[in-house]
C-alpha cells in the first residue's frame, strides 16, 4: 500500500474533476449537470484541504469554507431558475434553455 502523499490527493482531485466535467458534457438533465458542477467543486475542495493539511497552513481550509458558501448560494439560485423555467416549459431538458435570449 505504501504511504499516502500529497501526490495521491492531486491525482484523486484531478480524476474527480474529470468525472464532473464528463457528467456535465454527457447529460441533458439540468439537475444532473448541477451535480457534475458540485463534483468539480468538491474535487477542488479536497485538493485545497489536502494541500492545507500537508503544508500546515490553515488558509486553504478557509478557502474550502468560502467555496462551500458560494456553492450553496449558487445551488439555491440555480434551482430557483430551474423551477421557474420548468413552470414555463414543463421540462428540465437543457435543450429548452436555448430560447433564453438577452
Amino acid at each position: 500500500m505504501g504511504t499516502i502523499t500529497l501526490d495521491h490527493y492531486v491525482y484523486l482531485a484531478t480524476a474527480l474533476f474529470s468525472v464532473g466535467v464528463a457528467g456535465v458534457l454527457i447529460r441533458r438533465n439540468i439537475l444532473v449537470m448541477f451535480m457534475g458542477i458540485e463534483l468539480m467543486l468538491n474535487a477542488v475542495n479536497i485538493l485545497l484541504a489536502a494541500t492545507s493539511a500537508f503544508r500546515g497552513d490553515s488558509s486553504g481550509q478557509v478557502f474550502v469554507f468560502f467555496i462551500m458558501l458560494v456553492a450553496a448560494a449558487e445551488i439555491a439560485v440555480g434551482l430557483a431558475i430551474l423551477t421557474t423555467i420548468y413552470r414555463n416549459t414543463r421540462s428540465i431538458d437543457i435543450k429548452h434553455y436555448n430560447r433564453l435570449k438577452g
Partner: protein
Amino acid sequence: MIAIAFYLLTGLLFVAALLVILSRSPMSSVLWMVVAFFAITGHYVLLNAQFLVVVNLIVYAGAIMVLFIYTIMLLDLSKGLKHKRSILVRLAGIVSGGLLLTVLVAAMRRSSEAAVGDLALVGQTSFVGLVKPLGLALFRDFLVPFELSSALFLAALVGAIALGKKGGTD
C-alpha cells in the same frame, strides 16, 4: 492502516461519482451524490480537518442535497426526458473528460515536487483543521471576505425568492 482507509474511500468516491453521472433517474443520482459526499467527508477525517468534516456534512450532505431532493419532488419527472443526447455527443463528452484527465495528469507529473510528507504523520500532527486555528484565521485574516459572503448569501436568498415566486413581475 491510513493507506487502506484512503484507498477504500477513494474507491467508494469514484463508484458513487460515476453512478451520479450515469444513473438514469435523477433521484438515484442525488442519493449517490450523498454517498460521494460521505466519502469526501471521510477524506477530510483522514486529513484531520475536523471543521470541514462538520461543515461538509451539514452544508453539502444536509442542506444542498435536501434542496435537490425537494426540487426533484416538486417537478414531475415521471415522463423522463424525451431527448437523450445522441451517442456521438455522449462519446465526445466521455472522450473530452478523458482527454482533460490525461492533460491534467501529465501536467501534474511534470510539476509534482518532492513528496511533502506522509499522511499518517500529517494526520497526527496537523492541527490546522481544528476549529480554533480556523476560527482565528477566519476572523483575523479573512474577516472582510467572511462578512461579504453574508451579503452574498442575503442576495442569493432574495434572488431565489424573487425567482421562485409564482407569477413573477414580468
